[in-house]
């Protein structure tokens, strides 16, 4: 008996003394980006849990458990830069992941380069981020340019012209509209209306869209204004085809409105949680079991990001050398939940972009890419 207790104590001590590697996380736990931040953290937590349950990261004959060092950057560039600096100098992490806000990521990236710590973005979509020649910056998710390219391809195949827009009066909205206009051509663009953050009355856009006889309307915005705009367009009796962003293809969004008003709307999507692809299905099941809700693209991208970082540490044989880690990441190929991830020379991955459509019963089907087409309930 005493021997058993002694042995148990010994193993407990051994477990407690097991090596750990701290991995930096920058995200939003509070502030305006807190809700998407939760999805991102769920992805990281799930990945860390699975890595640790499998014994940790094997480097140089030892196993390292992942220990997430999380900083709340609150959608604030100054907070982001200082968190990044702290992670590099005080916590001395070999790699940092996360961020939601492109502006904050833009402030963090130069710090990552200064201290030679790879920064793997998993959510921000600002196209410029990977155009700065920063060798320490990687992005798992598709940029706005990639999303727009796929969406325009889809819209052109449908022959939806003229296309009207309602968009944020900011970088994301104006950038998105200009990007799509360039791809579509001026002739196929209809009414373009901008609204300021915090504006809730879309009635003027509704009148203009009706007057412009738009075949389809692209809504460049997130959940809150999106739900208001759709409600006001549909209540005014407009039957125009609606096209939305990532934020509008989730069950959460359905709860804000109703299947009636959403029926037929399409939106680009980085991750269809109900797709029959085995890797997506398995991830969605594990996610639902742990968090009790539908899996989200931000979680899948973040999960893949951390899994890649772990694979890179294993392959590079280091848990401290950021430079070595960077070089391995640059050449790494990873079969992730969202698809095959491989960074190009600018550090940008090229994951598949989907277009999903709302069905009358409140489920979604996949329309694009053609090869992954699937009916209601799959999107």
């Amino acid at each position, binding site marked *: 008996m005493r021997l058993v207790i002694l042995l148990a104590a010994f193993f407990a001590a051994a477990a407690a003394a097991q090596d750990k590697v701290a991995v930096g996380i920058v995200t939003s736990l509070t502030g305006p980006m807190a809700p998407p931040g939760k999805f991102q953290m769920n992805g990281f937590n799930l990945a860390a849990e699975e890595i640790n349950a499998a014994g940790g990261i094997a480097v140089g004959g030892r196993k390292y458990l992942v220990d997430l060092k999380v900083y709340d950057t609150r959608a604030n560039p100054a907070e982001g830069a200082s968190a990044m600096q702290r992670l590099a100098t005080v916590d001395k992490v070999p790699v940092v992941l996360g961020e939601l806000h492109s502006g904050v990521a833009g402030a963090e990236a130069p710090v990552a380069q200064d201290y030679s710590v790879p920064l793997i973005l998993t959510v921000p979509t600002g196209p410029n981020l990977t155009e700065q020649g920063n060798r320490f910056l990687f992005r798992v998710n598709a940029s706005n340019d990639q999303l727009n390219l796929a969406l325009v391809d889809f819209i052109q195949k449908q022959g939806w012209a003229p296309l009207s827009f309602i968009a944020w009066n900011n970088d994301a909205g104006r950038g998105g509209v200009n990007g799509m206009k360039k791809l579509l051509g001026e002739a196929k663009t209809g009414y373009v209306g901008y609204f300021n953050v915090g504006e809730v009355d879309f*009635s003027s856009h509704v*009148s*203009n869209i009706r007057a412009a006889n738009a075949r389809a309307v692209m809504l460049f915005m997130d959940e809150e204004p999106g739900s208001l705009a759709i409600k006001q367009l549909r209540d005014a009796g407009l039957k125009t085809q609606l096209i939305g962003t990532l934020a509008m293809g989730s069950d959460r969004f359905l709860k804000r409105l109703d299947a009636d008003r959403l029926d037929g709307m399409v939106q680009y999507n980085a991750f269809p949680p109900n797709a029959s692809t085995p890797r997506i299905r398995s991830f969605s099941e594990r996610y639902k079991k742990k968090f009790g809700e539908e899996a989200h693209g931000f979680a899948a991208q973040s999960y893949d990001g951390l899994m890649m970082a772990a694979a890179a540490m294993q392959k590079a044989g280091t848990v401290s050398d950021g430079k070595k880690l960077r070089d391995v990441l640059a050449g790494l190929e990873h079969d992730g939940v969202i698809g095959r991830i491989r960074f190009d020379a600018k550090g940008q991955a090229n994951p598949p972009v989907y277009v999903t459509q709302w069905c009358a019963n409140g489920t979604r089907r996949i329309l694009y890419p053609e090869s992954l087409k699937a009916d209601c309930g799959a999107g």
Partner: protein
Amino acid sequence: MAAALLEQVVNGVMTGSVYVLVALGMVLIYGVMHVLNFAHGVLFMLGGYLCHFFFTRLTGNYALAVLLTMAALALIGAALERGVFRPLQGNLRNQVIASLGLILALENLAIAFWGPNALQLKVPATERLVALGELRFPLQHLLIIGVTATVVAAMFAFLKWSKFGTALRATSQDRNAARVVGIPVERMDVASFALGTALAALGGALVGPLFLVFPQMGDTPMVKGLAGILLGGMGSVPGAVIGGLIIGVAESVSTLFLPTDYRDSVAFAIMVLILLARPRGLFGVRARGEE
């Protein structure tokens, strides 16, 4: 085009009605106490939140929830007058600063209570659509216009024919003379604040189901309401009504001819133009004792 114009006029009258509710309250308080209460927008916002609370948690009856909201905000308004504005009486500058401070305090209080994200106030009864020719409007739209028209009419009757209303007008014309004839002017202060705040609350409670309830929901109505007051003539009740409606309709109709992001500029450009022509606003009169 005719349909679009009609649609925008109806929309404009609706947003204008909301500005009118805000402007009426501010004008009432300004008239009696000569304080511009910049916290009026956050009181409007509190109206939205309290209505959400009363409707979803307590009664489930929208009309009752709106009335409860107005009563609750009237009490809060009276408390603010006693606790914040009365101690600073005679010091206009500090009263204005206090009202600016109230914005920060109340807005953050709302965030602490209800969180930073917008709440949805779903009132199924008023979501019904009403057809007007080929156009359709949610019932809530027409409700806002109807309720505001009723409130404005009641307000005029109250100020003109009731004893209390006459006392309010007397106090706003000359505080000392009012006191001489036996009007309890301090009580008029409390009453104007309670009434004004209840009107702001009504605005918030009416707009909530149409849009969303969020911490900054009162910002635009407050600024536009203020523009309506200046346009109509500082301190004039009919001026506040006409001014609010002009701003609402002008900015809505302008979006048919100008990019929608010029909407706010149009509202203020009209205000500036009218003030250039009539420096005291449409209904402005030189108040007694004013320079």
